[in-house]
């Protein structure tokens, strides 16, 4: 608990997390509003449609999670941190938990705000949050952001350097996972097992607009269900985090 409180003070006493939070919500909701405004004439706004821009918020929150770690290395405060609490695993877990909860809450807020804004603007469509699938789509973004933040913290711990870590957490989901599918024959099979593709499948798989959502990621059918997808994504995030913690415990601070 103390460790969590300490990490909370550290996170919120600098400006960049605040910026990240504002930008994450602003971009996601703003883009959804823009899309819904134009889509209204056609009356084609679905629950999934209101969540298409979740990636904006997700990317910004991942950058925030990375910076929460790498700025500590940059300014040398990680040494102070390890000095005040020599159990590195506990400190890093507290940090990851805090950042992940924040990311999850912000993503949830962005998701529901997006839904609400769409509902307001898309007067010709009949939007309602009913059924487990619709809830998975909207509330699920919180879970995805939570796990993506854990993964980003892990990348930050491993690379210790803002530029490299930011590049990795952005280029991997946005470019590598998409381009992989272009490799002939085997590309699409490999892509099915890419972590962010699995997370995307968790949100949009089995939804009325799943085909359109899949096209956004350039992905084809995946051989598992939505909940298996998030379990797989979670396993990868937590696995990478464990590797990162072991590395940090062995390494000189």
């Amino acid at each position, binding site marked *: 608990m103390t460790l969590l409180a300490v990490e909370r003070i550290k996170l919120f006493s600098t400006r*960049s997390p605040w910026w990240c939070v504002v930008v994450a919500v602003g971009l996601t909701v703003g*883009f959804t509003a*823009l*899309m819904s405004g*134009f*889509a209204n*004439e*056609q009356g*084609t706004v679905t629950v999934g449609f209101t969540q*298409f*821009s979740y*990636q*904006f918020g997700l*990317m*910004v929150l991942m*950058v925030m999670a*990375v*910076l929460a770690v*790498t700025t500590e290395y940059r300014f040398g405060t990680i040494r102070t941190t390890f000095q005040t609490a020599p159990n590195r695993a506990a400190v890093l877990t507290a940090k990851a938990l805090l950042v992940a909860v924040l990311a999850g809450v912000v993503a949830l807020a962005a998701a529901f705000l997006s839904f609400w804004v769409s509902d307001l603007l898309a007067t010709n469509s009949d939007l309602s949050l009913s059924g487990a699938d619709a809830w998975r789509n909207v509330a699920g973004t919180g879970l995805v952001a939570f796990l993506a933040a854990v993964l980003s913290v892990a990348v930050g711990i491993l690379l210790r350097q*803002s*530029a490299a870590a*930011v*590049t990795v957490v*952005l*280029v991997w989901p*946005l*470019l*590598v996972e998409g*381009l992989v599918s*272009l*490799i*002939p*024959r*085997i*590309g699409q099979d490999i892509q099915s097992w890419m972590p962010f593709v699995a997370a995307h499948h968790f949100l949009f798989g089995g939804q009325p607009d799943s085909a359109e959502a899949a096209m*956004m990621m350039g992905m084809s059918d995946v051989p598992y269900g939505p909940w298996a997808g998030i379990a797989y994504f979670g396993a990868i995030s937590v696995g990478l985090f464990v590797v990162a913690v072991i590395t940090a415990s062995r390494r000189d601070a």
Partner: protein
Amino acid sequence: MSAVNLISAESIKLFSTRSPWWCNLLAMVLPVGFATAAVLSWPTDVPISVTEVQMGYQFGMMLVLVMAALAVTTEYRFGTMRTTFQAVPGRSSALLAKTALVAGVAGLVGLVAALGSLGVASVLHPVSDLGLGTADELRAVLGVAPVFVFSAVIAVAVGLLVRQSAGALALLLVWPMLVEPLVSVIPTVGEHIQQWMPFVAADHFLRGERSMIADPVLSPAMALAYFAAVSVGLLAVALVVARRRDA
């Protein structure tokens, strides 16, 4: 102050630290690696096209964006930008020299990546008649160089405006990889707006009919001119801001 000296000074800076070497190396290796993977998994009896071999250029472009932005933002981070402005108080000439060098290196990297991809593919896939015979093929391969050049100019400009590595990189990576593709999702106007997105235009220049634009207004050559104009415009704004601002 002569341009040659300033460019030479910038090249000492760029090549006396490790990260530009890594970025440039990866920017050449990743596209070639992608071409290798594509060709190896392609059926051996069906010809592959030059455009398909060059698909991995985006990896190289992202790393070029990173390299060019860091060339500026690390100078701000470590205070050497102040030393630079102390040595060249006009500022613009030093920043133009940096842009010229970084863009030139990016162009070379693009050329090596594109020719390397083509070379590897023709060796590994002899059935395909991979060459630079048609205008489309020439553009798809040699065109990577100017696209990397102007990408680097954009990255330098963004670096000058943002002055901070994490912010500049987030912007430079999210913009071409997420914002530009997602714009097409906007109903009615999305696809029309999308072709005026700078990196989509660059892609259109390289891949012509195979690019993601359904109904292009600009010809491929004009698309490159548009991309160049955007990058130079952004640089002009960045130079004006950098001159006015406290270092």
